[in-house]
């Protein structure tokens, strides 16, 4: 996904003179073709994220469209004030390409895990937050990223994730993508939570439960129209994401459902990383499984909610 994302920056730069790339201290050879062919618009400026965001803002204030790339934690936590003030307050066209959103860098430990990036980016006025599920969706997103007004946080997944969005049409920023229909359970998800959620829906189908999967490649602005329509049809709603349960997609969904009274008579559950720094190394899937971001757990939680619906004879403790 990252490779495809960066390739797209190169393609966009060839077509549009406004496009500039800035990296911090990326891997050897990153975007070497870009650097060779368009050296004037290729910048590699060192491990200095506060400066990089300011530089990107200054260029964007002058009309450039700047794609700024480094590891997600350093592009969100390290320079949060610069993102808030330089990018969001000025509402400039800078795209933050955040490598390894979520727990991609599992072997490297909690300093490199971006488990709250969506929450803190979502809290900033003017910021758009996207988390494509696979490389195909990333490419479609990048095509429409140039002319979108204002800053965008782009959460990049590990890469080589199974492609599940090939038939979903052009990417529309701010629009959710219905991936599967079903009237009993609604699973809302984003990023690579989509693949897990689709597998959970399969499991539920095997058990005779019809689950819809609504994918939010844009977490902000939230597609509340799609959420509303799907929530109305569902008996229970589960939100699954590779992110802390505080402030991410699950929170955004809960806020909307609560404020529109859609939780009345429906049970709801956020699935994600609890309020902890993940305590194990291993790999991304291992951390996700440990905290229940798995097809088995999503399906089980949905079943539990179904069993505990008001009016059901048997109530199961969540």
């Amino acid at each position, binding site marked *: 996904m990252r490779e495809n994302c960066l390739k797209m920056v190169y393609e966009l730069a060839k077509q549009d003179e406004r496009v500039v790339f800035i990296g911090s201290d990326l891997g050897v050879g990153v975007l070497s073709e870009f650097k060779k062919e368009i050296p004037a618009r290729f910048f590699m400026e060192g491990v200095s994220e506060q400066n990089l965001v300011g530089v990107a*803002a*200054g260029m964007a204030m*002058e009309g450039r469209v700047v794609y700024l790339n480094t590891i997600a934690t350093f592009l969100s936590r390290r320079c949060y004030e610069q993102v808030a003030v330089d990018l969001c307050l000025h509402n400039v066209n800078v795209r933050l390409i955040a490598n390894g959103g979520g727990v991609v860098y599992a072997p490297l430990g909690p300093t490199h895990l971006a488990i709250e990036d969506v929450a803190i980016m979502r809290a900033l006025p003017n910021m758009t937050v996207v988390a494509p599920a696979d490389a195909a969706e990333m490419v479609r997103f990048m095509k429409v990223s140039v002319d979108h007004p204002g800053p965008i946080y782009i959460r990049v997944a590990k890469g080589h994730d199974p492609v599940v969005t090939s038939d979903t049409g052009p990417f529309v920023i701010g629009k959710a993508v219905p991936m599967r229909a079903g009237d009993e359970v609604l699973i809302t998800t984003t990023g690579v939570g989509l693949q897990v959620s689709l597998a959970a829906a399969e499991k539920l189908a095997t058990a005779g439960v019809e689950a819809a999967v609504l994918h939010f490649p844009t977490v902000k602005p939230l597609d509340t129209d799609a959420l509303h329509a799907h929530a109305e049809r569902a008996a229970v709603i589960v939100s699954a994401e590779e992110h802390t349960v505080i402030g991410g997609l699950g929170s955004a969904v809960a806020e909307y459902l609560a404020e529109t009274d859609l939780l009345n008579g429906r049970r709801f559950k956020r699935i994600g990383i609890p309020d902890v720094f993940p305590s194990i190394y291993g790999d991304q899937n291992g951390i996700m499984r440990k905290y229940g971001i798995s097809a088995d757990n999503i399906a089980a939680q949905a079943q539990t909610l179904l069993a505990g619906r008001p009016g059901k004879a048997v109530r199961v403790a969540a």
Partner: protein
Amino acid sequence: MTTTPRLDERSKHLRRVIVRVLQKARRGHVGAAYSLIEILRVLYDDVLRYNPQDPRWPGRDRCILSKGHGCLALYALLADKGFFPAAELDKFCAADGILGGHPDAGKVPGVEASTGALGHGLPIGLGMALHLRLAGSGARVFVVLGDGECNEGSVWEAAMCAGKHRLTNLTAIVDYNKHQSYASTKEVQDLEPFADKWRSFGFEVREVDGHDVAALRQTLTGVPFAADKPAALICHTVKGKGVRFAENNMKWHHKNKVTDPEVEALLTAIEDA
């Protein structure tokens, strides 16, 4: 360093404009603004290219007040040059005004970037300078920093980057009044050897008495100071300059509840400066 000449009528006038703002709003970063006045006055009178009728004119020089808390001095100059009606000064910090306690680029014509959070102006100015060079523009970028602001790591991240790019269209100007909010810069976070720091980051450095209008004019009209380096100008200034009882007096760094007798005292002190 030679002795600073007495303030001339224009410097006194600009200080009186700020007193009138204080009289209405009853608050403001007085010391920080008064140390800046000659720097900004020379920039706007003698150095910068701009058009108040077309504040976004692409050929303009960009001037960023990175020490945003010195905005009263900037507002006085921008009003003086006609970027906005002087009547706006009477609404400083008012809910229906455009002039806040820190400058907002979205509201104030002539303000290039919203500042106030320290350490943001030099990276932004650097980005502008890189763009301008890339675009083949002759426009220049001037960033005015505070000395306390130079505690921020982002200032030095940007300085390192500007040095690397040998940006001759970028000038960093430091209002070195030797005082920050709590105490002297020497006590809180000593910046010395300050000029050597900038030099070692790749800047060509000059030092000047930041209240000596002629010296400022001569130095600032000479940028860049080297053919292949960004410029840094360290302006030795006095916090609260022009008001004897406020000079180097931390009570006047930011003043709340300014009283009428204090307004009178300020005006009298300016006359004597």
